[in-house]
């Protein structure tokens, strides 16, 4: 089971990185969303895989008995999901602003603050 899940995580990360290395901000956004999923999944599996034992205390009991899923990564990932969503929304709006103000979604062309040095025209 574990190797397959590890491969899934690997594929997700690879796709996310591939998309984020694009020069188009739109693809970067998609990659960013994908990376969120990949990272959440890998944090989650760091708590080890436990089947059919959610960290819920049984009715009438006051504490756990036996093996239970690790609640800590779950709490972390829950936070991460929400924050990731906020970040994605923010990045999307930034991309939009950039498009409206700069007329481009290609990151290399967003050069108002740091213009590239002028290239010398060839002599011919």
């Amino acid at each position: 089971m574990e190797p397959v899940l590890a491969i899934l995580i690997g594929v997700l990360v690879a796709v996310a990185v591939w998309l984020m290395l694009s020069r188009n901000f739109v693809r970067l956004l998609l990659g960013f969303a994908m990376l969120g999923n990949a990272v959440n999944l890998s944090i989650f599996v760091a708590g080890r895989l436990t089947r059919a034992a959610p960290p819920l205390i049984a009715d009438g009991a006051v504490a756990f008995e036996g093996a239970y899923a690790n609640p800590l990564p779950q709490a972390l990932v829950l936070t991460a999901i929400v924050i990731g969503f906020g970040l994605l929304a923010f990045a999307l709006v930034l991309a939009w602003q950039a498009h409206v103000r700069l007329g481009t979604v290609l990151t290399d062309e967003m050069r108002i603050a740091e213009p590239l040095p002028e290239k010398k025209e060839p002599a011919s």
Partner: protein
Amino acid sequence: MPDGIVLACLVGLPFVAAIVAGLLPTRARDTASMLAGAVALVCLGLVWSAYGTVSGGGVLRAELPWMPQLGLSIVLRMDGFAWLFAGLITGIGALVVLYARYYMSAEDPVPRFFSFLLAFMGAMTGLVLSGHLVQLALFWELTSFLSFLLIGYWHHTAAARDGARMALTITATGGLSLFAGVLVLGHIVGSYDLDVVLAAGDTIRDHPLYIVALILIVLGALTKSAQFPFHFWLPHAMAAPTPVSAYLHSATLVKAGVFLLARLWPVMAGTDAWAWTVGLAGLITMLIGAYIAIFQNDLKGLLAYSTISHLGLITLLLGLKSELALIAAIFHTMNHAAFKCSLFMAAGIIDHETGTRDIRRLSGLNGPMPFTARLALVAAAAMAGVPLLNGFISKEMFFAEALSATAPVHPLLNVLPLAAMLASAFSVVYSLRFIHGVFFGSPPTDLPRTPHEPATWMRFPVEILVLTCIMVGVLPAATVGPYLDIAARAVLGDATPYYSLAVWHGVNLPLLMSVVAMAAGVTIYLILQRRLREGMDGPPLIRHLDAQRLFERAMVTLSWRLARTLERIAGTRRLQPQLRLILIAAIVAGAGAAFVRGVGPGNLVPAPIDPVLALLWVVGAACALGAAWQAKFHRLAATILLGGVGLVVCVTFVWFSAPDLALTQLTVEIVTTVLLLLGLRWLPKRMQSSSAREPEVLGRTRRLRDLAIATAAGGCMAMLAYVVMTRTPPELLAQHFLARAYLEGGGTNVVNVILVDFRGFDTLGEIFVVGVVALTTFALLRRFRPAADSVELPEQQRDQLEADEARHARDDGRHVADWLLVPFTLTRLLFPVMLVAAAFLLLRGHDLPGGGFSAGMVVAIAIILQYIVGGTEWTEDRLSLLRPPAWIGTGLLLAAGTGVAAWAFGLPFMTSYFSYADLPVLGKVPMASALIFDIGVFVLVVGATLLMLIALAHQSVRGRRSTPRTLPQAKASPRVADAVGGGG
């Protein structure tokens, strides 16, 4: 008075007074100077009060433990040597304050000046009274910093700024070196306490790290005392007001280096390494300084180089392996302070009364200012070492040492007597130049001001100092003898040799050397006089050996060229290369660590593969790959596939016992997809780079490289995940939460208890972030219209509008409404159901899967659904309560208020409380304060999500308004409900 109070007052009083002076009004010249003078006199009195103890060989000591575990304490310690320096600092400080009162113009912000001066006095006193090495280094840096402020006091002039910066760069760098040095020294000894260090001489000298400590400490001392090759900052520091020069460059700042060398002399000197570093630096400095001083045209420049030369002399004495030389060094330090301070003050008076310091323009000032002329004459004579003045006696001691120190140290030092005579002759030359050039010759003409005697009180400090020079020169043993003895004994202890302070030792070799040097000096001056008068462009022979230019070149190279080069190599102005660098670094670091340490097989046996789940994951991977494939041309497909990935992750969460995560993931995935669909609509489909397209080959290479990086990153993460999953976890923090969730948090859903109770503060921070993000998104989109190239209506919408247009009786949008009638009715019916579901999730969250986040998302989805199917206007007409910013505010207040409420019960912030309440119908309901917190989270999540989505959705309303449509305007122009914070 107890030692502690005396010492603490000595160091603390100037700092307190500095703050008070700094708070005085800008024009309060008299008040500030009175304050400064009073403080200096009180400190002098305190120093004097300690005379009884130190004269008997006692030591005043006060210790305040600070971090005793680290051996760090504040130790103030005054022995005879520190006492002498403290006396110099406070005594000359008082004179300088009096002088400055008359020197400083009423136009200057004088209180600031005195504030800096007092703080400097405090730092200097702290330096000499430090009984702890680290503390000494601290005060050392403080003096550098305050001297920067003092030298740059007239910061409106470029010279002051440059001089101050140069002084700071050199002395503060030296201070860092010193700091490192004392750390090494402390490491060698095992204690930073000065008393312990001074008792560990043999340990230090025999330690292998001795050389390191020596070099670092000597570097600090040499930079501070303006020794070659760091001497060049001192002449530039002459841009300071003259009282500053008189104080810093005669008695205090530059003497700190000498002080340190003498302080550590008993434990660090006596080796060849010490003799060569300290002695050689002193020798070169003495000669070069004296030589350059001759050719200075600026009075203060001449004095600055002469100071450098005299400091070199003292350093040279400290470098010799002789106790007598040390005594001579201490003695000369005092003498130099007296005559150089008075000379600086005289130069200041001349500058003040004539308006210039250029020796070539000045002459015959003996006429208009005879009294000042005589004072300066005596002081300059002391500097030249004329008999019956203090400079003569220490010079004779120096000659004697130069003669006796030759053979035992090194045969090369046979040149020492010659060098001593040469330096002495040079000092005669520049002293003569100072006096003869300024006060004699034809009466002054063409000066900026008509010269006259200064105010009586301005001359008074000079008179005191000159009187001291004469007294010490005539009756050394009776005047200065006891004090010098106290200082020498404090440093040398029982090893103090016999020495005689007398004017006349009979006709001996040193006296002969003096006479020769004197005669040589006068001769050289007579030869050079005419050329000097005409003005020479810098000193001959070494004109091009300009240390300052080297320094500036080094600074430019370091701070500009090197920085630029580094930026060119390591920096990039493009996002993707940066990202690539970060990824490569992470991959190399991670994989490298795994490679070096090796990764063994895990101890857990992987579970057997469940075909259903495996298939699900294969689908997930396929979705991801498909998204990457489609991202370039089919963003819609890519977005849908992305949603597929999210669903697979969601099912994985369910499968592995994380129902809360699955709920949140599911709802967030829905909202994310809506968000992307709304947002991508306004971003261009494909955009070519407007600049020239890169060649096909380059593009392919780039993408191949990216593919390699992506594959490597994915491989590493897969490996990492696998390795983690196949190992038994260490002692889990989770046990802590599992055991306490119910007993202390009152909830059976541990994940929720962690979020709203144990780690409630994190969650509070998180919801603030979400709220801020939503508000920022809203602010960015308010008053914003989509870009012109994306406002064109999509084909489908055009079709619909044309259909409406074709039938004249219909409003715009009627067509769509008709088509969507069934889903529209269904979603309206679904709306209350979803709200109930959300309430259910919220209320049971503490005990069963659910909670504020997922409940909030469900409500947001319910409302968004109405928007999607019913349209913006229809929805906002009916949901006038929908004011997301208010929801965000309410949510934050509720959540934070729950935390604050704990204060009302005298408990720490965010302490939770719980019990169960029996409600009718609903039954037993847990009433934890965490529930209120969770409601806050819920309200905020609803508000924030809606705000973001609605802000995006309203763009289509705006976009439509700004569309130059070919179709005639709609009959009823779309009424934009600006319910969203009024701007939408």
